């Protein structure tokens, strides 16, 4: 069941991407449209480590190092982009981050050392379900633990009211940057896992459309809800694949179906499936008893 295994694996990678973007967009309230850029940075640096500098150690250790390389380089890109851009708000921040992620892509197209427009080949196949989902769990624990601490509350307060947060003695800029950099870092980590699952990278795989798709995962589940992001990632990774099973015609029209579903969902539930709340199965039972 290679197909399902890989689909599950990709889903894991997108869970990391969605949860990390949620930290920026949902928890901190900074509207970023450039997640594909950080994903690309992590994928390419992680892959470059494995292709050019891999140490003579077991594969899983190399994968671990490559993930760390991906995390650090994407986080570094996050600092470079975040420090100037996070002064901007709302739509302007969105468009600036979009611009940066396109610039990242264009730079990769022109970098021959990682294949440029020809694509980066011969990346070892080190990712597997176990490691991907270990990282998924680690990512969720780290981000959830940060959110449920004083640092997380500081980040949330920025989303609620930036001026009031500043007046409560919170260095809003520092915390915005922190959320942005951590989010970018985990996107980079996901990138490295992705590179070692796909074994091939191409700049066209990291276009603006992907930033939108990751954002949709977050929004579908509900901005600010971690469980929402996880479910959003699952739905939006599985749905397009599921549409493949409805025959050639549907398959050709699936992007139309996909965009229609999206519009309808937004009209029906603009806050996403879970809004800002976490999924709590127990509460369903409580409600049904009433």
């Amino acid at each position, binding site marked *: 069941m290679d197909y399902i295994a890989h689909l599950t694996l990709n889903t894991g990678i997108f869970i990391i991407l969605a949860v990390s973007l949620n930290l920026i967009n949902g928890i901190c309230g900074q509207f970023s449209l450039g997640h594909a850029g950080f994903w690309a940075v992590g994928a390419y640096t992680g892959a470059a480590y494995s292709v050019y500098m891999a140490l003579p150690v077991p594969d899983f250790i190399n994968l671990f190092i490559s993930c760390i390389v991906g995390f650090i380089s994407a986080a570094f890109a996050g600092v470079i982009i975040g420090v100037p851009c996070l002064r901007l708000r709302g739509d302007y921040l969105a468009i600036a981050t979009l*611009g940066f992620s*396109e610039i990242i892509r264009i730079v990769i197209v022109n970098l021959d050392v990682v294949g440029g427009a020809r694509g980066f080949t011969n990346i070892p196949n080190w990712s597997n379900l176990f490691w991907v989902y270990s990282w998924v769990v680690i990512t969720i624990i780290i981000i959830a633990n940060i959110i449920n601490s004083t640092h997380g509350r500081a980040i949330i307060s920025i989303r609620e009211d930036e*001026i009031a947060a500043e007046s409560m003695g919170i260095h809003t800029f520092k915390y915005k940057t922190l959320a942005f950099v951590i989010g970018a870092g985990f996107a980079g980590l996901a990138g490295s896992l992705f590179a070692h699952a796909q074994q091939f990278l191409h700049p066209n795989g990291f276009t603006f459309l992907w930033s939108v798709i990751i954002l949709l995962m977050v929004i579908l589940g509900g901005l600010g809800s971690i469980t929402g992001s996880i479910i959003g990632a699952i739905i939006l990774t599985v749905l397009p694949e599921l549409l493949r099973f409805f025959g050639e015609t549907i398959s050709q*029209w699936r*992007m139309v179906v996909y965009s229609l579903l999206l519009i309808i969902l937004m009209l029906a539930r*603009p806050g996403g499936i879970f809004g800002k709340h976490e999924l709590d199965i127990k509460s369903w039972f409580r409600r049904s008893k009433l």
Partner: protein
Amino acid sequence: MLEDTIYFFYDLVQYFINGLAQGSIYALIALGYTMVYGIIRLINFAHGEFYMIGAFLGFYVVIAGHSLWIAFPVAMIGSGIVAVIVERLVYRPIRSAGRIPALITALGTSLFFQYLGQGVIGAEPKAFPSVINDQTFMFGEIMFTSTQIIIVGVTFVLMLFLWWLVGYTKVGKAMRATSYNREAAELMGINTNRIISITFFIGASLAGAAGVLVGLYYSTIEPMMGLIPGLKAFVAAVLGGIGNIPGAVVGGLILGIAENLVMGFWASTYRDAIAFAILIFILLVKPTGILGKNIKEKV
């Protein structure tokens, strides 16, 4: 050496002219962007698709053997009507839900039209017939074509019309009032829903006109054609100061000229990167754009 210098100036002027024509198209699309953003604070990602729809409507009218005098109005009215329908069915219900859901819906609408276009008319580019006799004028080393003149001319006229409409008519006054404070405008007896529909109609008509002009100028149209110019037009709108009509034109022209200078003197590989770099620079230095006014958040 002297010859090189002379050539340099010839080239400079040439790139400037090319940029002016390309920038005019960005400007036409940016006008619609800026109007819609100005009135409901929505980045209407589907705006690039209105431009695509206009191009195809014009294309089919011309293919059917009619002249440009029919193609232009059909394209403009057609994309205007599509925009009004989209506004009515999609954007109006979502408006109250806030800006981010509206933005997502706009993205969804944009994808919908792109892929619908690919499904219905096919992905391959269509050759727009050359219906006007495209003459080339040469002044020494500098060259321009009649299409370029038409594009710059049409853009300029439409901008003036819009400027007049918004600044000096009753509808324009209602638009400004709606943009400034929708509730208050409603209380003053303005039917803001109608005003918003009109704004969408006008914005999309301009994009439709741009679509036909692009068909004439580059002679190729395809369902994905709205994606990149749509983004660029947004950059142009922000550059000039979003919500500001002359600003959209200034932004479009600057972007077009800058891109052509980069292509001419450096490498076109970095053209899009430069466009976004300009955008980011402007946002950081003067977030309200070149012609925008500074607004401080009230505490």
